[in-house]
């Protein structure tokens, strides 16, 4: 699984979201974890600090962001897997775009419901006057 640049990642992620919209069921899975594989910046663990490589990296480590369209073994051919690496200094910019893409893609979530609040407000206004 080759890693994509951020631009490719976001366009393909948007594609996954769009295909969900068309199908009206299914899932999108997004994962983030620290990229520790093949990193040389971690100090080697020793007897005094056996978790040195896990807990105290000498430098900030990049993040690995993955996305799939939730297809399992049964549907391997249809599975789409994306992965990208975010360097520590790119985090803010990446998450800003990430939020945009997610917000745009997750259109089936409940929109903000203002009707109830209005009704409550009316009740509040009306209630005390009656009492």
């Amino acid at each position: 699984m080759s890693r994509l640049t951020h631009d490719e990642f976001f366009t393909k992620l948007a594609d996954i979201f769009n295909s969900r919209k068309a199908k009206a069921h299914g899932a999108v899975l997004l994962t983030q974890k620290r990229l520790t594989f093949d990193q040389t910046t971690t100090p080697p663990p020793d007897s005094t600090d056996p978790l040195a490589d896990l807990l105290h990296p000498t430098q900030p480590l990049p993040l690995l962001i993955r996305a799939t369209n939730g297809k399992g073994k049964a549907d391997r051919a249809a599975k789409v897997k994306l992965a990208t690496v975010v360097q520590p200094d790119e985090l803010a910019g990446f998450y800003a775009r990430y939020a945009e893409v997610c917000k745009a893609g997750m259109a089936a979530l409940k929109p903000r419901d203002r009707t109830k609040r209005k009704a409550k407000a009316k009740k509040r206004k009306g209630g005390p006057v009656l009492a």
Partner: protein
Amino acid sequence: MPYYAKSEDWLHQSSLLLQARPSTTRITTRYHLKPARRTPKPNNNNKKSEDPTQAAPPPPPPPPPQQDGGETKPPRGHLVLKTYDPASGVTLKYKTSKAAEVTRLVQMLGTLGRRMAGVAVAEGEGEEGQGGEGMVGVVEGGEVGGGGSGSGVQTPVGGGGGGGKELPLLQQQQQGGGGGKGKKKKGKR
């Protein structure tokens, strides 16, 4: 495998887990669509409304499905955030179906991501740090007020004291604002 009721709680616990196990913990976001659970009620209402209009009985049946097709609620989406650490088996979850939360949740992912990456400053820490500094500042200010002698020292420490005092003032203002709203409502009554 708890679901947290508040996203803030999930964020807090997840950041604690990340602090303990920054290398193995991963955060999965699952967005899934389900067909709307409530199928539109059978065409009773439609038929009742259509019967008075006395439309020809055979033609209506075909339209209702189409109408229902239009009326059926769009599939409902759900968003589940899961923090999982395979080493300890800890799983923390938060579930929502509100679109209004997406942006905030992705920001939380970003906050946790910074912690995950090992970047020093995270927002939660920053807030806590400010609070702590504020407290320290107040204490220092009090001490300086008690001593109140050194001329060269006063300016920087006094600035610290001022910085410390600003936060409580802000909080008081916020609280005062909230109280004011309540009072206004009472006044209207």
